[in-house]
């Protein structure tokens, strides 16, 4: 299909045993806006910076945190358009599972299927890896769960994690602040403080996004005014 020069896989091994395209994809992720997630004892929170290229952009139209199923949400760091493709595929897979089993898909299964898609794009002809890492937050019968999925297709379960520009500072901050007994509201405050650490400019309800899921198992993205309330509490 297409020009024969490009019909081999772009992700071919280098002599050092690396897949250079995946390394480059991770670099693309690392220069994306910071996002993070924290798993509390009774829920999960994910958050991201929402820096828009100009003040003229209508920030209400931009939503980085998306719902995959009523009880699973996702945030990304990296290339927005790539994340939209993955969100679309994941939603379809979740619905196919439901159609077959009449049961909501467990978080681990959805993460695995999404990771499989990402891996396929590292071993097919004429395609490039996705330039995003995803943080998937969900609540199912196994309790609250937080997973990170990388462009290579590997996925990890985290108690707390960060991705994007400020990743090392954010992770150090989270390591210090994280406790196993943390509850959801504490986790939201910690998330806000972590975002504040590397934030350039004034943080507000309009330039960050927060999504959370609690015991009710309904994932929701907070509105800007709800974010403002949490911001004021965190002051």
């Amino acid at each position: 299909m297409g020009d024969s020069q490009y019909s081999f896989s772009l992700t071919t091994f280098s002599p050092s045993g690396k897949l250079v395209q995946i390394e480059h994809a991770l670099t693309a992720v690392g220069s994306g806006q910071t996002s993070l997630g924290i798993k509390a004892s009774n829920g999960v929170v994910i958050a991201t910076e929402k820096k828009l290229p100009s003040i003229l952009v209508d920030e209400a139209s931009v939503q980085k945190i998306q719902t995959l199923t009523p009880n699973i949400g996702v945030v990304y760091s990296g290339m927005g358009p790539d994340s939209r493709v993955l969100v679309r595929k994941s939603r379809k897979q979740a619905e196919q599972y439901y159609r077959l089993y009449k049961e909501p898909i467990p978080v681990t299964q959805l993460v695995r299927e999404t990771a499989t898609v990402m891996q396929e794009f590292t071993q097919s002809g004429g395609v490039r890896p996705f330039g995003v890492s995803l943080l998937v937050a969900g609540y199912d019968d196994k309790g609250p769960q937080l997973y990170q999925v990388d462009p290579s297709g590997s996925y990890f379960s985290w108690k707390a994690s960060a991705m994007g520009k400020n990743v090392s500072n954010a992770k150090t901050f989270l390591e210090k602040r994280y406790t196993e007994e943390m509850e959801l509201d504490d986790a939201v405050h910690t998330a806000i403080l972590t975002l504040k650490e590397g934030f350039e400019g004034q943080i507000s309800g309009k330039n960050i996004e927060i999504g959370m899921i609690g015991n009710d198992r309904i994932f929701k993205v907070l509105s800007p005014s709800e974010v403002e309330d949490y911001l004021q509490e965190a002051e």
Partner: protein
Amino acid sequence: MRRKALAFDHFLHLNVGKCSNFGSGVIFEYNGSALVAMVGKNCFAIASDRRLGVQLQTIATDFQKIYRIHHTLFIGLAGLATDTQTLYQRLVFRHKLYHLREERDMKPETFASLVSAVLYEKRFGPYFCQPVIAGLGDDDKPFICTMDSIGAKELAKDFVVAGTASESLYGACESMFKPDMEAEELFETISQALISSVDRDCLSGWGGHVYLVTPTEVTERILKGRMD
């Protein structure tokens, strides 16, 4: 209401067009079977006859029609024997993969949805089977259901029946069933219903096979009835 799902099967394979030797509904009567499942108090029982025939000739008197999916989930399959065996193999395959991927057993309701989907895949060239599914769900609540050969589910709170002896089974169960029976009484009831119904059906019989399932144990018993 109860008969709705089963009535469809009688006309179903007129559309299939391949069975030139069989008239309406007769494909389901080629081998003969009787299946019944009943709900008790925190337990269930599933029972079948043991005959395998080729029309009027009896071939085997120990033919298995109830299969175990996992320790608290059983499926009984009535209808054409080759289809029941193949369908069982496919379902066990699906469940084994599910168990490996999800690291848990399937709930009975989930399994019933899977069976329905598998049957509907063959909508225009179906398996000539009628499944009876029985299992313990969340909190050990008993679950039973049946469906027609293309996957129309029929849930019931008391009992479900399938096979060539189904009409007699309906009558026997309706009169003998009581809600919330304990395990021993449930066993007696389902056994009597099965034996009396297969005695009125020439294509099923030669004894019975009863599984009684409680949260703690599974009991398998063979019944001796009229051996004809």
